[in-house]
């Protein structure tokens, strides 16, 4: 009997020590709720939010940006315009590889400053090929360099988008105007879309983005350039917070050579339509059947 009670005491001691060790191991999680509200935890998917829900969410997100970044911002839910199908074309004959587009994207879309993040990567490729394997993004010299050509790559807003198909929870989808978006408050961060994308167009928030308050672009939309939470995917949205209000994407405005053409492909008088009808265009990795809305073309 005494032996049995000693055993019980030892077991109880073991269980107590175990529980204490478990609590100690989990201790780092105590810092988590600082960035995590119950409202956010229980928030429904973008498409399930009523107008009133959405207004509450937007005000909450604005407040969070103020609390966490010290910046006063306006976040809107900018919806697609009916009868608009966006398309983008890029003139490889005039692109000089200056990466002003990537820089403009960085600023416009409130990217993490520490990693110098951008949705655009510019490849420098030896003339005589458009083989990506012959290219590099790490060039560091005056441009344009003789014997080299340049190819900026960003999200192609594919009509048959692998990233949308693979998402297990519909956190990313194609909007009626052709833009592929992410609900940053629904994404679980499994990164399956990042593995599926053939164009390296998706980015993951490996850390909470760091941006000084004075550098934050206050003109924001829920589905585009608002400051993203840690642990979720993000991507180019053709600057929908601008383009759905009739403005041009930031990368286009920044381009010094006029290599970029953006517009509504349904408008017969648009520049994008003219390019598609009159220029020698191609899309990247056409054989994959992704049907991009981002076209490359040459002058001659």
């Amino acid at each position, binding site marked *: 009997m005494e032996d049995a009670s000693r055993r019980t005491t030892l*077991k109880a001691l073991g269980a107590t020590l175990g529980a204490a060790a478990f609590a100690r*191991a989990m201790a780092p999680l105590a810092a988590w709720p600082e960035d995590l509200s119950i409202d956010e935890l229980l928030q429904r998917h973008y498409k399930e939010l009523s107008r009133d829900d959405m207004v509450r969410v937007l005000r909450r997100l604005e407040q969070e940006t103020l609390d966490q970044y010290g910046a006063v911002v306006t976040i809107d839910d900018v919806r697609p315009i009916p009868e608009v199908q966006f398309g983008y074309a890029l003139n490889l004959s005039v692109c000089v590889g200056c990466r002003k587009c990537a820089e403009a994207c960085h600023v416009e879309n409130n990217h993490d400053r520490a990693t110098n993040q951008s949705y655009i990567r510019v490849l420098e490729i030896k003339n005589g090929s458009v083989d990506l394997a012959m290219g590099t993004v790490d060039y560091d010299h005056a441009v344009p360099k003789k014997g080299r050509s340049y190819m900026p790559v960003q999200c192609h807003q594919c009509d048959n988008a692998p990233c949308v198909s693979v998402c297990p*929870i519909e956190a990313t989808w194609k909007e009626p105007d052709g833009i592929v978006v992410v609900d940053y408050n629904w994404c679980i961060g499994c990164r399956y879309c990042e593995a599926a994308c053939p164009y390296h167009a998706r980015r993951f928030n490996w850390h909470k983005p760091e941006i000084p308050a004075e550098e934050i672009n206050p003109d924001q939309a829920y589905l585009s350039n608002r400051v993203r939470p840690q642990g979720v995917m993000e991507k180019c949205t053709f600057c929908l917070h601008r383009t759905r209000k009739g403005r041009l994407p930031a990368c286009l405005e920044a381009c010094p050579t006029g290599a970029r053409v953006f517009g509504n492909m349904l408008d017969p008088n648009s520049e994008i339509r003219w390019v598609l009808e009159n220029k020698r265009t191609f899309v990247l990795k056409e054989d994959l059947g992704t049907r991009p809305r981002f076209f490359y073309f040459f002058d001659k």
Partner: protein
Amino acid sequence: MNHARSYPAFLRDAVGVATDGGWPFYTWMTLLTALALVGVNAWAQQVVGGMGLTAMSDHVSWGLYIANFTFTVGLAAGAVMMVIPAYIYKDKAMHDVVIVGELLAVAAILMALLFVNVDLGRPDRAWHLMPGLGRFHWPVSMLTWDVVVLGGYLLINLHICGYLLYTRFLGRRPEKRWYLPFVMLSIAWAVSIHTVTAFLFSGLGGRPFWNTAILAPRFIVSAFVSGPAFIVLALQVIRRVAKVPIPDAPLHTLLGILRVTVLLNLFFVGSEVFTEFYSGGSHTASASYLFLGLHGHNALVPWIWTALAFNSVAAVILLSARAKSQLWLADIACALTFVGVWIEKGMGLIIPGFVPSTLHELVEYMPNELEWRVVVGIWAAGLIVFTLGIKIAVEIFAGRMRHQLPAAEPDEPQAAGGV
């Protein structure tokens, strides 16, 4: 029989058995618990600090976690190599120990689920994946199929193990209609979990290294290597440590299976290597990176050649006549090929899919210390589940954990076995 009384008694006795044993048992469990807690701690840091605390990047966006996920799904599926001889071919000796395979399936699936969950950037939103609660993108997303098949496999095996152990605890013979249909279902289901996991990768057109029809067959065959190899080693340990008189016959059956699957696995790898390298072109870049190194980047080269060497040596040992009479040789072969498949189907499969990247950038990946801590923690947790399952099963099958009728007042613990 009143199940409302006897089932809680079953659970209570199981907890009793699971927390009672000799010093070797306590030492083993304390070690595993400590390692599991190290993993929990590393994961907690990662949740708060961000996935950036790992070595993964936008170029190599899956790493050691998904590598181990893939491998443990295979381990779970491989357990079926005990179930098939036991139930389809009515192998009596295998039938006596088949519970080991079923418990392994449970432990391995739990590990697989943990490996996916630690890979999530937002574990607080994991409920978005629950059918009905979140928005389940089924049947389009292969990941939703994986949720269905992995969850289903876990439930099926929990039922089989639970039912068999509970009826034995009651001192009854299990009724076939309550478990045999589930056993048959589990066989088909085992193939499905690893097929779906292969489709997760092979369905991606943008990743030529994975986009190959032989991936699912390779996954299945390598599962039938790692599963039996683990079980052979487990049976050897169980019969020595727990003093359970397990005959050699089931071991020989499993080794017979391994003799074929180890060779088939090498053949499939060879077929892949031929197709990649003979046709050439930029699609070969990943395979070149893996086997030979590419433009001075060769982090995985030692890994894959180690795997191939281990698997080849294991094949030679298993084919030799001596391994049939001297089981310690077969044990070595099992250990070698278990590690070999872990490398080949883990790091050797996941990482080259990302190197070079889809824009042909060469960014390498090697797991950092935090990732290793999480991975070791999950393996420890899996071994805890497996050890406890085996211990309870051993006590029940030996008749030491048996339901006491209410008159017998079961407050005095039964003499514990010396595991």
